[in-house]
């Protein structure tokens, strides 16, 4: 914070001249308060044959044909399938800080994701970083913008794609430019691919003013 005084000189009576009506000016520089960004994922877990205390069906010992069929037995119950049915990102969009793999598709990602300091994704030739759903089930998404600050990227040859239908179709995008989808869907994901000659290209958290190297904003 800097304080700028309009007049800070001492003058004698006959040097005063006309009245100075200038007010004190206070200038505040870069005094942003910390902000909380969030994303919530909702997962449905089928309880299958698991024994659940108090459950009308799965809480009855010794009775076969529980939810999911089969004998319900304490200690050996079998949970059914699990699926992510909704992902909600805030109005500020999805932000990836690389602190964990929550929203990294570890099956399709071949680049190295480092979730301890220095937080970064390390690409060698043709390697890929692909996300899980970063917004899902809340209405079709018509446009999106993938932001990565230039300071967060070391090296070249990365290409960028977005999918609005869960990865069925990928559409090439330019960084920091809004993209209008040609496909239709409500399952937004991003993919970053390194070129054939790439070597040790990184997307990283530099912790010098921003800590979330990848941001994805979208419009329904």
């Amino acid at each position, binding site marked *: *914070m800097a304080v700028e005084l309009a007049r800070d000189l001492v003058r004698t009576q006959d040097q005063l001249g006309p009245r100075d009506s200038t007010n004190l000016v206070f200038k505040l*520089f*870069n*005094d*942003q*308060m*910390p*902000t*909380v*960004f*969030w*994303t*919530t*994922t*909702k*997962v*449905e*877990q*089928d*309880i299958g044959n698991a024994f*659940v*205390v*108090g*459950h*009308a*069906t*799965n*809480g009855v010992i010794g009775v076969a044909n529980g*939810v*999911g069929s089969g004998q319900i037995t304490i200690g050996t119950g079998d949970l*059914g399938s699990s699926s992510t*049915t*909704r992902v*909600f990102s*805030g109005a500020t969009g999805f*932000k990836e*800080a690389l*602190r*964990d793999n*929550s*929203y990294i598709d570890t099956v399709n990602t071949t680049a190295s994701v480092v*979730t301890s*300091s220095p*937080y970064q994704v390390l690409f060698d030739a043709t390697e890929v970083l692909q996300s899980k759903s970063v917004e899902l*089930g*809340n*209405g079709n998404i018509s446009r999106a913008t993938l932001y990565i600050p230039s300071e967060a990227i070391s090296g070249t040859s990365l290409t960028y794609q977005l999918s609005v239908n869960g990865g069925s179709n990928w559409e090439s995008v330019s960084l920091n430019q809004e993209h209008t989808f040609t496909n239709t869907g409500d399952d937004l994901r991003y993919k970053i691919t390194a070129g054939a000659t790439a070597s040790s290209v990184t997307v990283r958290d530099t*912790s010098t*003013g*921003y*800590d*979330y190297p990848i941001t994805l904003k979208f419009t329904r």
Partner: protein
Amino acid sequence: MVFSNAGKNRIRDLLNTDLSHGELGSGTTAANATNTDLVSATAGTSLALSTQTADKQIIADYSLPSTAAQGSTLTEFGIFNGSDLLFARFTFSSLTHSSTDEWQFSTRMFIN
């Protein structure tokens, strides 16, 4: 003025200590910063959060068991502190909680 990483992690710790429980409801009014509670909380859904932290990050997990709010149509979710102060709320298109499913809401918050 720049807030240091240590300062942000201190805020994270204070917030993490304060967070208490999550709750679901059937309100449909869009979330607003002036909200102080869910619009229409659903009985039996106020349940403790389980949290974990990383650098400048909190993950708060909420689990709705298959035995709670069976058959309820739900449209809003909020997280609160121990004094029922609403920390965050959002709404979503209606979902009905089946007795055959557990629901898990995992909220990742990043302080920057």
